[in-house]
């Protein structure tokens, strides 16, 4: 049967759709009816944008000596007890596969653990004055989006003769089989949360100074990142910081890692603290 093809007239976009969001000097969290992890959702159309200049992490070794990502554009919306940040930055290369010598594109949002007048040191906090960090990684996003978690997903032509824990005598998925598999994955055996396959593209972390990053078991953050024409757009949703209110401001900081430039860990582009305010609902 022949299909009929229809040509729809191109609708003229409304003025509201084409209007660029307001530029803000700080990061302003504006109220939203509902939060979304979709970086292309309409909720972001009107949220004010803060263009955060990124600085080299050149305070502690190993330092980043060559600048890469120049700026991250940040928007924030809140609903109920949750806040969602949308980070958008330019990145010509998609680096979403971690392997020997290959780093991944990533970003992170950092907030003080306590909302106080004086924020702790912006470089991952300080002793007894910690920070909460939520990190998104492009490789975890790829796993969540359906990429497999085997060596052939990294190297399609890899030849593997045999894994001991996949012997015919071991029933797939059995306790014996999974216990044996763990023996050959030491990080999994000791509960390292970086072990794949990931169910979420983000990770909640705590820090109290450089080199002190640790998992935040109480964290409930979620997120989603998408490749755009220019780079990445990532939404990170987390609990609103305790103490933050329309009358009490806090601080927020961001970091971006450019995988193609071998950035990981301390080698990153980052901001200092940026004032964070929660706007009252006009309704």
């Amino acid at each position, binding site marked *: 049967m022949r299909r009929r093809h229809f040509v729809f007239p191109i609708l003229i976009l409304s003025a509201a759709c084409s209007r660029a969001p307001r530029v803000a000097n700080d990061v302003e969290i504006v109220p939203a009816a509902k939060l979304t992890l979709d970086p292309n959702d309409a909720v972001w159309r009107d949220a004010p944008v803060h263009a955060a200049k990124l600085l080299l992490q050149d305070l502690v070794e190993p330092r980043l000596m060559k600048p890469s990502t120049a700026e991250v554009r940040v928007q924030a919306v809140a609903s109920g007890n949750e806040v969602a940040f949308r980070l958008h930055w330019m990145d010509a290369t998609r680096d979403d596969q971690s392997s020997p010598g*290959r780093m991944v594109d990533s970003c992170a949002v950092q907030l003080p653990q306590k909302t106080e007048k004086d924020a702790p040191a912006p470089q991952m906090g300080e002793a007894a004055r910690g920070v909460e960090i939520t990190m998104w990684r492009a490789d975890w996003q790829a796993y969540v989006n359906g990429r497999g978690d085997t060596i052939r997903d990294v190297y399609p032509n890899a030849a593997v003769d045999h894994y001991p824990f996949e012997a015919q005598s071991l029933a797939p998925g059995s306790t014996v089989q999974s216990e044996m598999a763990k023996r050959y994955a030491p990080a999994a055996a000791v509960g390292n949360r970086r072990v794949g396959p990931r169910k979420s593209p983000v990770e909640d972390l705590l820090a109290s100074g450089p080199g002190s990053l640790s998992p935040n078991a109480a964290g409930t953050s979620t997120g989603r990142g998408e490749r755009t024409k220019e780079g990445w757009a990532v939404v990170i949703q987390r609990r609103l910081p305790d103490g933050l209110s329309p009358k009490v401001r806090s601080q927020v900081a961001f970091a971006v890692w450019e995988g193609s430039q071998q950035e990981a860990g301390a080698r990153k582009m980052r901001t200092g603290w940026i004032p964070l305010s929660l706007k009252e609902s006009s309704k």
Partner: protein
Amino acid sequence: MARVFNWQLGREMSYWYPESRPQKQFAAVFDTNKCIACQTCTLACKTTWTSGKGQEYMLWNNVESKPYGSYPQAWDLKLLDMLEAGKWNGNVYEGKTIFESAPAGERVMGWRPEDQDYSYPNVGEDDCAGQVDHGALMSLPHMQWFFYLARICNHCSNPACLASCPRGSIYKRQEDGIVLVDQSRCRGYQECVRGCPYKKVFFNPMTGTSEKCIACYPKMEQGMQPQCFVNCIGKIRMAGYINRPEKARGDNPIDYLVHVKKIALPLFPQYGLEPNVYYIPPVNVPSSFRQQLFGPGADAAVAAYRNAKNDPDLAALLCLFGCTESMMTHWNRQGDWVSASDDQGKQLVKVPVKEPVVIRPAFDPKQQLVRINCP
């Protein structure tokens, strides 16, 4: 950076952390002249520790056909080129180590292999070493083959992997000096891969963490030598504990070979890590190449090794290589016999320095058959 004394360089040097010596230091001696590159050690390690997902390419133990074989590719040439030649004044190294050469913003001078660098476990293996009928197709600075170099983690006294990790995820055990990656703490930044000049830390893409040789510490804790040692067909390896030169004990097998006879030398001491795997250098390679790998004592070590037939104690100790699975901490020669014991004085093994020669007649009257000498 702190200042530490590196006895292999005969001087103080810069290191990221202050000097901290373990109670005991795991060490090993490999006799390069006995290695035939059968790779049994490689397989022993592989089947024991790295048969998991993400570990497919890992060779915590490997054997390279030197001068060109290398895993990962050009691990030695690349850093030697970056470091540039440093001079020795006698036994004192006057050049810069990788810590002293660290560029601004770095803890060590290092480089990170690309994944393709792990594609060839041993370039040059089984290449012909002599002249082919119609001449070689290409000429290289060295002969295609000099000797076989077996490698594991050196469990260095000044580990560059440990110094490189910004999270302190790598530690050196106080009880035996073994260097380990804390698998619960590692976040896979691969700084250790970049920092280790021997490229003996490997990134596991499935777990997102770095992994390395653990010197089979569960065996060592039971008083046994690691898997790659006990499975060595050529009996080229001996594991034990080494003391500082000023505390060397002549009845400690490792001390005797390294400090007393000085026939076992560290690999690339000029890097400054004070590696704890010591090599009896190969006898049949150019002296300059040998010294680049094993330092200024390499020729004297070869001379002492060649003279072992006239040195009853050295000849006896060399017979203990590969004779027992147990860790030997003491040794003793009595006449034509040599024995080894543990810290409790329990004798572990006793072997003759010269195996008795038994000549069997060609015809066996009991079995009524003629024996054939197989080549």
